[in-house]
C-alpha cells in the first residue's frame, strides 16, 4: 500500500515525551483510515526520537516518519512548520490531525497557510461522509465537528476541495487505545535541509508544572460550582470525593471565585472529562461546563433550583441544598460499601 492518501497524525513531543493527545489521535486516525481503507501515518519531529518512534508503532501506526535535528528538541514554529510541511507535501496524506494544545494550535495554522488548505480548530468529533454542494458530490470527506459560538452551536465543517483536510482535536475527547505489541509498522527516517535562519526563536526559560490533579484519567469526579458558596463549604466536596475515591472538579465560576484552583476546572476552557460517574454540586450546567463533561457515563446533579439546566443531562437529580445532600451521600456510602 502506498503512503499517499493516508490519515496522518502530527506527534507532539518535547524532550522525548509524547503528548497524550497524540496517542489519542492515532486511535482516531485508525478508525478513519479503516473506513477510508488507507494507512495511518505519523510525523515525529525532534532530536533523538528513535526510541519514542518505536514506542508509538504499537498504537497502530503503519508508517512513521521521523525528522531529527538538534535544533528541533523543543518546538518552535518556523523550523517545525518547514519540516512538517515538507513531509506533508512529499507523502500527500488526505487528512492530517493535530492536538489542540498550545503547540498544535501554534503550528497547524502556519502549516495550513503554507499549504493553502483548510483547517478546523478544536474539533470534538471527526467523521467520514459525503458532501454535496451546487450539484457536485464529494465522497468520503472529513466532517470536522466542533462547538462554535461560545458552545451554543455545533458546526460541521468540511474542506472537500483541497488536500489534506486538517483539524486540531481537543485533548481528552478521543479515547486512548491500548498498544498492541504485535503490531507491525515501519519507521522511516526523513531528512529536511535546515539552515541557521530557520531557527529564529530561542527558548530562554521554561517553567512547567505537572498538573496537580489528574481529572482526565479520573473514573469518578465530584465537582463543585459557585453554588457551593464558600471555601469552607467546598470542604464538603473534597470530603465526598475522598469518601468515594473520586477526584475534585469545578466550574469556572467556582475557580474564579477562588473556591478551588484552576487545575480543577472542567469545561470548554478547562479539562474535558469522561468519567464513569460525575457528581455536579451547585453547578447550573452552562453550555461551556457541559462541553467538558456531558460524555460522562452517569451524572448526578445536586441543585436547589429544580429548573437548573444541569438536570436536563443528569441521570439522577436531587433538588436540595448540597450542605444537606452531601453529608447524606457520604453517610449512605459508608453504610452500604
Amino acid at each position: 500500500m502506498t503512503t499517499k492518501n493516508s490519515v496522518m497524525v502530527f506527534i507532539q513531543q518535547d524532550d522525548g515525551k509524547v503528548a497524550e493527545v497524540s496517542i489519542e489521535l492515532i486511535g482516531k486516525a485508525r478508525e478513519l483510515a479503516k473506513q477510508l481503507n488507507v494507512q495511518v501515518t505519523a510525523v515525529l519531529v525532534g532530536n533523538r526520537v528513535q526510541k519514542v518512534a518505536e514506542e508509538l508503532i504499537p498504537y497502530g501506526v503503519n508508517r512513521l516518519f521521523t525528522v531529527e535535528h538538534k535544533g528541533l528538541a523543543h518546538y518552535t514554529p518556523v523550523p517545525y512548520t518547514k519540516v512538517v510541511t515538507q513531509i506533508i507535501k512529499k507523502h500527500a496524506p488526505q487528512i492530517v490531525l493535530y492536538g489542540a494544545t498550545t503547540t498544535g494550535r501554534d503550528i497547524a495554522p502556519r502549516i495550513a497557510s503554507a499549504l493553502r488548505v483548510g483547517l478546523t480548530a478544536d474539533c470534538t468529533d471527526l467523521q467520514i461522509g459525503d458532501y454535496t454542494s451546487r450539484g457536485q458530490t464529494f465522497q468520503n470527506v472529513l466532517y470536522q465537528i466542533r462547538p462554535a459560538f461560545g458552545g451554543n452551536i455545533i458546526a460541521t465543517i468540511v474542506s472537500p476541495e483541497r488536500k489534506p483536510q486538517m483539524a486540531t482535536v481537543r485533548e481528552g475527547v478521543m479515547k486512548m487505545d491500548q498498544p498492541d505489541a504485535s503490531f507491525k509498522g515501519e519507521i522511516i527516517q526523513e531528512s529536511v535541509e535546515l539552515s541557521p535562519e530557520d531557527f529564529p526563536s530561542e527558548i530562554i526559560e521554561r517553567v512547567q508544572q505537572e498538573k496537580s490533579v489528574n481529572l482526565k484519567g479520573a473514573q469518578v469526579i465530584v465537582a463543585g460550582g459557585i453554588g457551593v458558596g464558600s471555601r469552607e463549604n467546598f470542604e464538603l466536596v473534597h470530603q465526598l470525593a475522598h469518601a468515594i475515591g473520586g477526584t475534585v472538579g469545578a466550574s469556572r465560576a467556582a475557580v474564579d471565585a477562588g473556591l478551588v484552583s484552576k487545575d480543577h476546572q472542567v469545561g470548554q476552557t478547562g479539562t474535558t472529562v469522561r468519567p464513569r460517574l460525575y457528581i455536579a454540586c451547585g453547578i447550573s450546567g452552562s453550555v461551556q461546563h457541559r462541553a467538558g463533561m456531558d460524555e460522562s457515563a452517569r451524572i448526578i446533579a445536586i441543585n436547589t433550583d429544580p429548573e437548573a439546566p444541569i438536570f436536563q443531562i443528569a441521570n439522577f437529580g436531587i433538588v436540595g441544598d448540597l450542605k444537606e445532600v452531601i453529608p447524606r451521600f457520604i453517610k449512605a456510602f459508608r453504610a452500604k460499601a
Partner: protein
Amino acid sequence: MGLNLIVLVKQVPDTQNISGNAMKEDGTVNRAALPAIFNPEDLHALEAAFTIRDSVPGSKVHVLTMGPPSAVQVLKDSLYRGADFVALISDRRFAAADTLATSYALKCAIEKIGSYDIVLCGTQAIDGDTAQVGPQTAEKLGINQITCISQIVELDPEKRSITARRSIEGGYEKVKTGLPVLLTVNGEGFPPRPPSAIRMMTYKNATTEMSSADYDETYLTSGAELKSENTIALWDINAINADPESCGLSGSPTKVRNIDMVVLKSEGIRMIENTEEAIGDMVHELVADHTLG
C-alpha cells in the same frame, strides 16, 4: 527610532448572550441579532502596542480591522484609547472568508502600510475561538510568531530583538526572537486602558466618508492614504491589492456543512428525594452496578 506597530482587531458578536435567531439558514452568523463588541483579547493586544509605544518613543500604533461597515465602531474605540492610525478593510468580496482568506486580506493590508516591526492581535476571537488568524498572517508575511503572550520581558529596538512570555500548558516559556515578529496576546496580561474622554470628544464623529447606500458599487480609496489621523481609512480589495480569488468565499477552503443547535439530551432523569433513605437507595444501586466503589 520608533517602531511601527500594527494591531489586528475584530468586532465580534457577544457570544455570551445568544438568542434564538443568531444563525442564518446557510449556517453563517446573523450578527445583527447579537450585540457587537470589541473582541476581548484584541483589547489586550492593543494595550500591548500602547505599552511598547510608551517605552519606545516615536513609535506608532496602527489598527486594522476587516469587517462590515459597522466594524468602524472598534476602530473608533481604538482611536479613543490612543491609536495613531486606523483603517477598515471592507468589501463585499471579503464576505464569508474563513481564517485562510482573512489572513490573506490582512497580510495585503499590512503590506499596504509598508514597513512594520511588530504585528499584534488577540490570541483568539470569541466568535470562532480558532486562534488561527494570527499564525496564518505571520506565515503569509513570512515572519516569526510568538503566540499566547502575556508579557514582554525585554524589547531592544536597537538590536531589534524581543523576548516575550507565552503561556503553555501548566506554565510558561520565555521566547526570544528578532523583529519583525507577530505576537498574539492572551487575556492574562496588559489590562486595557480605558478610552480617554478628550479623545472621545475628538473622534466621536470620525467616519470613513462612506454611506451604506454607495457601499455596494463605489470603492472609496480617498481614505487610503496614510495622511489623515483623525479619520478612518477605508480600504477595499483594490486598495490593498488583493487577488479576489484568494478572498472571501472563493479563497476559503473550509465550508460549513451544517449547524446544530445544542440540544440537551434528556434520556430521562430520575429524581431522588432529598432524604437519607432515597439517597441511600441510589448509592446502593450505584455500588451494585459498580459505578461506585
